């Protein structure tokens, strides 16, 4: 393995991270500080997610890495190769074949199973960070479950725009107790987190926090009784596979305003096409 310890980090570090993860699982949605290490890539590139993956990865695991739903973007490819090189684990682009999935900003369309772990990359773990600048105060608010301020933010959105304008990183309540940032997922993905059979782990390297949602935990998006949470997606079908329920990326195709909507989850789209589904772009 070219002189690297398994999955790059030393055993003591991995043990420390696992201990923190145990705490996180014991207190769903609560941010646990951890000794985030210097990784061979700068902050903002997924160091938290990488450290969590490194801590839970074993030689028999199969790893999938996606970035905004795609396996083939630069970052996803980099991280996948990083673990291939330092841990020698098998890698895949198929959601159903993976035992560990590291993701930035999307949850796969394919429903996850009890024997899978999904690791999210988180830039800012504190859901109240934009509303309350003092970290000491936000810690107090979490400790006392004083979340009125977040509802004020939603109230203000409805006042200003007629609806809640948060389209990604939409705040959720975990287990009815902790307010959590799901990471910058589109609000569309929030419902997937509710009662998910897989273990969900979240790592923020720069902020040195991790948190977790154990399998089958209630996760609800904040809303008002008369303005309930609603998911939004572009009202199109995927141009490649024709899917009407997956989250879509909008792709600019030419300099004359041409656009194409395609599934953001590349594996999902490929799988559908392999099954014979065809979107308008590919129809002959």
């Amino acid at each position, binding site marked *: 393995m070219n002189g690297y310890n398994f999955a790059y980090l030393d055993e003591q570090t991995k043990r420390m991270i696992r201990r923190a993860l145990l705490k996180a699982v014991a207190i769903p949605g609560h941010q646990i500080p951890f000794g985030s290490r210097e990784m061979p890539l700068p902050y903002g590139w997924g160091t938290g997610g990488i450290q969590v993956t490194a801590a839970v990865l074993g030689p028999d695991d199969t790893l999938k890495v996606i970035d905004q739903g795609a396996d083939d973007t630069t970052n996803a490819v980099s991280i996948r190769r990083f673990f291939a090189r330092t841990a020698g684990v098998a890698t895949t682009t198929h959601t159903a074949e993976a035992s560990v999935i590291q993701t930035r900003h999307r949850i796969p369309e394919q429903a996850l199973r009890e024997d899978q772990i999904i690791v999210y990359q988180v830039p800012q773990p504190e859901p109240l960070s934009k509303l309350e600048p003092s970290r000491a105060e936000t810690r107090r608010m979490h*400790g*006392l479950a*004083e*979340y*009125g*301020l977040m*509802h*004020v933010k939603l*109230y*203000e959105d*409805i*006042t*200003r725009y007629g609806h809640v304008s948060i389209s990604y990183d939409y705040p959720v309540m975990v287990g009815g107790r902790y307010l959590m940032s799901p990471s910058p997922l589109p609000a569309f993905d929030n419902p997937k987190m509710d009662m998910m059979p897989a273990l969900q782990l979240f790592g923020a390297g720069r902020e040195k926090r991790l948190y977790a949602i154990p399998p089958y935990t209630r996760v609800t998006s904040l*809303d*008002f*009784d*008369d*303005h309930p949470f609603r998911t939004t997606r572009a009202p199109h079908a995927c141009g490649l596979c024709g899917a009407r329920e997956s989250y879509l990326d909008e792709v600019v195709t030419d300099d004359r305003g041409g656009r194409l909507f395609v599934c953001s989850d590349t594996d999902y789209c490929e799988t559908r096409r392999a099954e014979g589904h065809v979107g308008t772009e590919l129809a002959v």
Partner: protein
Amino acid sequence: MTQSAHDETLLSARGLNLRFGNVIALDNVDAELWPGEVLAIVGESGSGKTTLLNVLSGRMAPQSGVVWYRDAQGHLADVHAMSAPALRALHRSDWGFVHQNPRDNLRMGVTAGGNVGERLMAQGSRHYGNIRQEAIDWLAQVEIDASRVDHLPRTFSGGMLQRLQIARTLVTHPRLVFMDEPTGGLDVSVQARLLDLIRTLVRRLGIACVLVTHDLAVARLLAQRVMVMQAGRVVEAGLTDQVLDDPQHPYTQLLVSSVLSA
């Protein structure tokens, strides 16, 4: 029978002592407050009146002495022995605190409606329409036009900010409100309006109030009882009109005779 008047104090403090180094802030201070009454604490700068307010409201701990609060169920609690969560919850529900500078108690980046509705949301209100309507109702009660409900406090005058702070404080129908120089720093005409508002609201809602002021006229207008403080001690206390019209203590006599009238 008049005996009932003595039964259930809402707040009572015994033997409060507090010093900051060599400076005596509170020297063996007692105080009592009954439901629905207004108690003014008057004195000049350095008298200890604001310190007393902070100790009574649990924001500052005394070095000795005790402050008892009787809740709506009649249970007595030692304010300084309460857990932090319990005290914070009390401040958000049964108690209110009106600061001299309204900016200390308002979110300047949140609309007037959001400011007033926050305490409701903190208590679990989850219906946007109802919250907004209640906010509008309260704004009306403090004479802020309903059209300002979606405006930011940045656009409000000093008097309006203070009235907004009061609405924000009263929205959960507190039984006890602490006020620290609520009219300090405001223009005289603005003061008059605010005082009238406070007077009306306190009476109509039956709120008990501990009011710190250096202005004897404010004490006379709003309070049934007054405590005069000097250098951390209560030098005189009693019926407001009696203390101000027939002051016994030399310091009270000095205070009363020093006030200019227009």
